[in-house]
């Protein structure tokens, strides 16, 4: 049996028909879309089609609002740096404690350059306090950046509402929608979102291709200057094959949107309920009633996530963890800590992220295997059972997250 891949929030398999759509653009359609001759012209037409496909999935008003970049991180950096360069008098930024490092680390860097960054806090389910947000919006703020869906828990931020509030205060609004695009319906033309980042490899397109959506009329300063590509907003010869692939992947995601929100959601719910029914002292993290249909993040108390992953991997099951050990740092996931998940549980958080290729048999297998793995590791844990160290963690710790 092939492995069971439940790590689709990390990256996805490139769909076979996406690969097939891309292949001609490495060989016979190798031309530079900027060239005048027919070699380039056909490629130019292919890019135009891909741009329309992306536009369609995002519900953007104009195809010129789509800027192809190299990845989600580039889109995030471009958006935030553009906003502050276009508004040199505004020295504040609002973001959230749950953002991806692509945004967080850029913001901490900007703090060193003199920017005041407000990190919106979250409650134990990872929800924002919109009153606190509203109070921070002022004419000193250059940009707000908040993610559409969290990569670890799948929970949504109310980005549509936040964008309205920012717009009313005259502040630019950017959202990192890398996890959300392709999984939930998006209609940017009816929103006040000024900029949105997406990443191809999260929706069955290849790695190395991303998009920055830039609403028409929003003041913009490019990150990469040079050639006239992307209307001068992102210089550098286009990654033509990947752009064609991304276009195809967007079209397929659009077609699978209903399946994603019914069948994938059903399998995710079955997986989560199945594991929680069999494993004591475990709970789903995040805002479980308001999250992506494909993501389940379960905290297993008193054991460590990397050990869980290694054992799951032995059974051919791929998942990911918010444990410190998987990152090389000594701290568990900033998302779990920000939600106040105790260390006893934060180190044992395990994320299962499904895709439209996940099957019922795979989900059943994971439900069967996981409880054994958890029991095996707990048997080894000094925090489990009666023989824990003097500072008994169970006394200090009563989870209220279930």
């Amino acid at each position, binding site marked *: 049996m092939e492995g069971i891949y439940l790590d689709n929030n990390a990256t996805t398999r490139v769909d076979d028909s996406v690969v097939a759509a891309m292949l001609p653009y490495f060989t016979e359609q190798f031309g530079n879309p900027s060239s005048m001759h027919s070699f380039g012209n056909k490629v130019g037409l292919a890019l135009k089609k891909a741009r329309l496909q992306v536009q369609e999935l995002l519900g953007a008003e104009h195809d010129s609002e789509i800027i192809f970049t190299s990845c989600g991180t580039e889109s995030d950096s471009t958006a935030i740096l553009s906003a502050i360069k276009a508004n040199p008098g505004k020295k504040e930024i609002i973001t959230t404690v749950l953002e991806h490092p692509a945004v967080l680390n850029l913001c901490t860097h900007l703090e060193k350059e003199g920017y005041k960054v407000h990190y919106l806090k979250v409650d134990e389910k990872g929800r924002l306090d919109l009153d606190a947000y509203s109070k921070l919006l002022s004419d000193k703020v250059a940009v707000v950046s908040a993610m559409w869906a969290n990569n670890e828990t799948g929970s949504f931020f109310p980005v549509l509402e936040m964008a309205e509030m920012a717009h009313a205060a005259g502040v630019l609004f950017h959202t990192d929608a890398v996890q959300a695009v392709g999984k939930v319906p998006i209609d940017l033309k009816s929103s006040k979102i000024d900029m949105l980042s997406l990443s191809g490899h999260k929706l069955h397109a290849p790695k190395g291709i991303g998009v920055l959506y830039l609403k028409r009329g929003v003041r913009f300063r490019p990150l990469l200057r040079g050639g006239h590509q992307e209307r001068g907003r992102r210089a550098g010869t286009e990654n033509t094959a990947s752009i064609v692939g991304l276009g195809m992947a967007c079209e397929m995601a659009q077609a699978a949107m209903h399946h994603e929100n019914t069948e994938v959601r059903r399998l995710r719910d079955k997986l989560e309920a199945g594991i929680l029914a069999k494993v004591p002292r475990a709970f789903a993290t995040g805002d479980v009633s308001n999250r992506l249909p494909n993501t389940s993040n379960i905290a297993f108390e*008193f*054991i*460590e*996530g*990397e*050990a869980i992953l*290694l*054992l799951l991997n*032995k059974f051919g099951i791929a998942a990911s963890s918010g*444990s*410190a*050990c*998987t990152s*090389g*740092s*000594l*701290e*568990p996931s900033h998302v779990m800590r920000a939600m106040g998940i105790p*260390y*006893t549980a934060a*180190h044992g958080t395990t994320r299962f992220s499904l895709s439209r290729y996940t099957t019922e048999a795979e989900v059943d297998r994971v439900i069967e295997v996981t409880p054994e793995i958890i029991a095996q590791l707990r*048997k*080894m*844990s*000094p*925090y489990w059972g009666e*023989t824990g*160290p*003097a500072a008994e*963690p169970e006394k200090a710790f009563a989870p209220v997250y279930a």
Partner: protein
Amino acid sequence: MWDYSEKVKEHFFSPRNAGALDNANAVGDVGSLNCGDALRLMLKVDPDTETIQDASFQTFGCGSAIASSSALTEIIKGMTLDAALKVSNQDIADYLDGLPPEKMHCSVMGREALQAAIANYRGEVWSDDHEEGALICKCFAIDAVLIEETVRANSLSTVEDVINYTKAGGGCSSCHEGIEEILVKVMAERGETFSPHTVEIPEEPKPGKLTNLQRIKRIEMVLDSVRPQLQRDHGDIELVDVDGKTIYVNMTGACAGCQMEAMTLQGIQQKLMEDLGEFVKIVPSRAGSLSRAASHP
């Protein structure tokens, strides 16, 4: 995925001596939930001989923490307490055929648990003097706390100082930004401002201009250094003349006319260039060619 050795994986998937030890008379608890690693080491020590008769562990931690714990119990079983105290974290890592730098702290935890257990047996109080920070230098596994303390204790002010005192940053150099941040912070404490200057990787001093005689002597030295290899193959080489950048040599014995002559000369030429620090060309002298012609009619 971490690059774990087969031995690490093996000890993780089938840990030795995992679980509580019923009649343990030495117990060492180290680690904390915060850092995601905690280890309880339990020993059964023979009071007469102070020999570790049995050992077991319980570990809350990642794959390498569990493997390190397993390895530790295997290493110390049968040892006397004094011998066990000499087990270093490197011994644990070596037993497992090495650990990734980010994971060396797992082996450190094993050693600390051992010290704690022995202190517990002897009725002493063991105190953990080891504080760990975020890993800065991945090449040499050096964390922020160590760098910070070293910078503070020695009033260091440049990245180069930090490299010299701690080794951190002396490898791939990609952590220099992190080191600079520590310098900025610690220097601010003592009221100084960090001023960056590029770290220059020390280069081999270039040989100065040699006199003709010195140059010829050096060439002779290089030829002498390769001579034993040539003689092993029943050949030899002699210096005929040096004319500017061209060095004329005579290949004798089996080397003369050897099919590998061109390759051999190329190798020697490379050595000469490295030693002299200049471009030179090595050419078999005509005398040599003539003698070869004579010996191969």
